């Protein structure tokens, strides 16, 4: 049997018990006129995530706290929220990295329904407005279409989007102007505009050339900082702007 000496790095050695103080912006539309702050104290492990902390509050202190969650490891996009002033996913931020004194708010720019739950319908309507699906009119027959690794790499970054909304709801223009489609919709347009198999780039560029489109972007880079998937969102928006200006036939 093949044996190798394993260099041990113990993840568990770094885990310790910590006191966590949470300040959460609460709003119950059936009772409250305006949002208010509630504070909670918990003992958690430093390896717990912010989502774990919220689940602990809900399970052990106050079952009325509402927040969305599903996969709990950053691939489903349910739990975008504002953590200490920055848009983050609750499930990929550990107490050890974000600290033990946490201020949690719903994301901005979408109507709050209850606690951390915001109305995602405007966000998905913006997504749908950019034709976020492959449009290829040539009959491919019964075989796969070929695509070179280089062509595939051209839009790889924007395929990572999980539609969590962290980017759009971190954008000052998006907060101020309800008509702006927002970074997430542009990312999802980019994913098809630069796909060599797609034939509707020009239609999408027309949509994004309108007043609600890319020209609203003021390159603040908030979206890029907020993206939990590490997508270079601002760069994608710039590439779409450039395509509108220079690349259209």
């Amino acid at each position: 049997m093949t044996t190798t000496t394993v260099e041990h790095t113990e993840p568990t050695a770094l885990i310790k018990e910590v006191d966590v103080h949470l300040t959460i912006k609460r709003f119950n539309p059936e009772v409250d006129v305006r949002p208010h702050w509630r504070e909670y104290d918990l003992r958690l492990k430093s390896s717990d995530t912010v989502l774990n902390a919220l689940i602990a509050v809900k399970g052990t202190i106050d079952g009325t706290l509402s927040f969305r969650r599903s996969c709990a490891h950053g691939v489903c996009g349910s739990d975008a929220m504002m953590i200490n002033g920055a848009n983050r996913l609750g499930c990929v931020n550990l107490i050890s990295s974000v600290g033990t004194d946490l201020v949690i708010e719903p994301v901005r720019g979408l109507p709050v329904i209850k606690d951390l739950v915001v109305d995602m319908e405007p966000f998905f309507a913006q997504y749908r407005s950019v034709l976020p699906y492959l449009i290829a009119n040539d009959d491919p027959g019964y075989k796969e279409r070929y695509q070179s690794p280089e062509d595939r790499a051209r839009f790889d970054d924007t395929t990572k989007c999980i539609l969590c909304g962290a980017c759009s709801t971190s954008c000052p223009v998006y907060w101020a102007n309800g008509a702006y489609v927002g970074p997430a919709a542009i990312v999802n347009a980019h994913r098809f505009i630069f796909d060599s198999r797609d034939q509707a780039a020009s239609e999408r560029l027309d949509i994004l050339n309108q007043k609600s489109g890319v020209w609203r972007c003021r390159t603040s880079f908030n979206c890029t900082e907020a993206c939990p998937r590490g997508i270079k969102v601002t760069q994608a928006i710039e590439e779409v702007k450039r395509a509108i200006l220079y690349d259209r036939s």
Partner: protein
Amino acid sequence: MNIHYHSYDAVIVGAGGAGLRAALETAGKVRTAVITKLYPTRSHTGAAQGGMCAALSNVEEDYWEWHAFDTVKGSDYLGDQDAIDIMCQEAIDAVIDLEHFGLPFSRTPEGKIDQRRFGGHTRNHGEAPVRRACYAADRTGHMILQTLYQQCVAADVNFFNEFQVFDVLFEGEGSARRAAGVVAYELATGDLHVFVSKGVLFATGGYGRIFQITSNAHTLTGDGPGVLFHRGIPLEDMEFYQFHPTGIYGIGILLTEGARGEGGILRNGLGERFMERVAPTVKDLAPRDMVARAIHAEIKEGRGAGPDKDYVYLDLTHLPPEQIDAKLPDISGFVRTYLGLEPKTDPIPIQPTAHYAMGGIPTNVHGEVVIDADNTVLPGLYAAGECACVSVHGANRLGTNSLLDINVFGRRGGRAMVEYVQGVDHPDLPRSVVDPTRERIDALMNSTGHEKVGAIRGELQVAMMRDASVVRTGESLQAALQVIHELRDRYQKVAIDDKGSVFNYDLTEALELGSLLDIAEVLVLGADARKESRGAHWRDDFPTRDDANWMKHTLAHRDESGAITLDYKPVVQGRYEPMERKY
């Protein structure tokens, strides 16, 4: 509480891969409502990583028959061979369909869909691993979910997002009984919606949340099987539950088998590559049940790693760093985030994690739900994906075959439902069909009990992990059953804090817990009765496969009093004779 009524030809419950794939078949043909308790893109199909197998032969010789053989052998001969043949043949079309839908597969230098190795998938009936898994980096499931959702947007599919189904409706009695709709709870308002429809397809996914360590989302609570079981529909082969070998230690987050497909190696605390002992030919790429048991054995025999010697390592440190970046970027991120380790230089602590339900709602190859040992179809009722049991996975699913299952049988179920609903009248139901759901909700809202949902769920998960997971005995299963019965009593006294009607997850979690308890009980009863070891069901007290007595599917039935009885039906045999499973 307001009650709303809707009329549709077809209702699809769940909007993961299977539900969306079915919706693409019904959209534009029959009036369809797709009901999901999430937003479609939150579904757990998006967490699948490694790939989807199909014998495309893009990078080396391969045939669908080899894929079928591997699937039958992987199933430990409990899979139905007619269904497996269909799945492996249609796999090729399913991949081509996804490519045409726009899925951004990873490509070969010539531009073809690239393929890689995966556990249990072999060349020429077991000779060596074969490159069969089509993939998109290590986020194949994400790409499948996004692509299917994109196509649903293009097809203008009618979604009811954040609506949770708590009851299924039927019309008629006995042999005249047919599906007639569902009752759903709208999270945003607390209103109830009665959907009266000619066809109902369940695609609600799995129920990994019965276990403590799981790769499954919080939302995977067996809603579809739970609802149907309560209405007298049997559940099939529930004792077969897959533990994925490589979950992140202590958390259970999945690290794809593709990591071993790319050359990753499992090592125990002594640094030994222990899979060489267990599966000399395919080593680390043995099927999941065998690898999970091997890890369990290493730990039990004191060769685990860490202060408590309770994990082993997934070692990628010998792989070229650029290969890790290109092929395994997402899982590398998980390791950095949750363990603070660098997969390029640190071996990764892993343990088996509850991953996939082979069992579920019994169906035939058209996705039609069958309700007895004679495979009698219940008209209008369909199921597809993880919540269903066709059975293509038998006692142990091969890696990648779940993404295949949702595409092949999602499509088949959708097509069959279209054909059926076009030929039948609309059901006629009384308004009182909503009452049972309303009464359940009222009872929880008004409960004066003192039991907490989280506490009961937590105790269930611990007991199931300890007594009914990778290795079982009659004694451990009896202990689990005892715990379940106690928790069931306590569940009668459960109370919730939130009495509101807006996004009351306190309420929905309490209702979900009912399904978790039911499903756990069925799993344990089936496992206790099955006195053999096959696939993912391992009994230390009966450590061999017993084809003479147990090559049959379990069917668990619930009567109106709540009593559960077990029945069995034969496995569909085919060209592959049962043999000893060696790799």
